[in-house]
């Protein structure tokens, strides 16, 4: 249980500190501009390695169905602008890709 309590603490603090401290201060312009770009950057950094690498340790792998399905899913997201419909479409395409 010491493991769980310790993990709880170290996973909570990085989530909590910025929210209680940064919300009470006026941030400098450069920091606001930087934080404004963080979501686009972080989402891309989370997603792209999942699409084009595989294995442990990771190596480049451009033949993954995850990547092939991502292209039409991306286009669908641009045109539909619907999160729910994109999730369903992506799942359907991935499922179909598995049948091929």
């Amino acid at each position, binding site marked *: 249980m010491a493991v769980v309590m310790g993990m709880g603490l170290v996973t909570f603090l990085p989530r909590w500190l910025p929210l209680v401290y940064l919300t009470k201060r006026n941030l400098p312009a450069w920091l606001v501009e930087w934080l404004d770009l963080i*979501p686009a950057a972080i989402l891309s950094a989370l997603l792209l390695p999942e699409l084009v690498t595989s294995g442990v340790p990771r190596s480049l792998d451009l033949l993954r169905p995850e990547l092939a399905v991502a292209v039409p899913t991306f286009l669908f997201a641009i045109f539909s602008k619907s999160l729910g419909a994109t*999730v369903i479409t992506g799942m359907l395409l991935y499922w179909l890709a598995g049948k091929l």
Partner: protein
Amino acid sequence: MQRGSSLGMHIYFIPRELKKNMNQSNQKSALKRGAAAAWPICLGYAPIGLAFGVLAQKAGLTPVEIGLMSVIVFAGSSQFIAVSMLAAGASTAAIVATAFVVNLRHFLMSSALAVYLKNSDRKKLTFFSYGVTDESFAVNLTRFRESAWDLNSALVTNYTANITWIITTVLGGFSGQFIPAHALGIDYALVAMFICLIVFQLRGALYIVTAVIAGILAVVLSIFIPGNSYIVIASMTAAALGVLIKRKLLH
């Protein structure tokens, strides 16, 4: 790339009558809005939660311990790593240190969310911060940008996702064989969600350039650096380059 002027209407349809009464029934609508925003997250969490439960049970954790871990830690990747380290006999200090590093990226996410939550109630912020995950961050941030979002709805989104995670991990701990693995492309739910959330973030050339830099950097770093520190390094660097590009080239 032009974003839809009324993204909220696409993701979540607000009936006209409800919109009129929104001020009167704010709490009820926060509940509805938050839950509606959460369902794609829940869809993605369910199979992962079940898988985690099965793995944790095999590593010797009881369903109660699994539930406690999901309540106290609530961090998918850290929990998976912790369980495999437990099974391998790693020390408490090593597991906690790893969880810290793996979850450091949430520091960036909470900082980005803080921009939209100026002078909010501290208690609510504390409860909200507990539920910041990759997925809830992305969904809430998109909504905050649309400005038709508030802390109450965001709290509902986080806790809906949280409860889904807790329930599915415990269910997996009892028996993982409720749902056949890989059914109906459900493995792809979170990937598809991230693809769409990225599209929502690409609101102009600067965002696209930043995302491309971050993506390429992340791929390269992920191949050469073990672990997941590539996420934080790539996104911090790409956002910094984005600010430089904005200040040096566009002004």
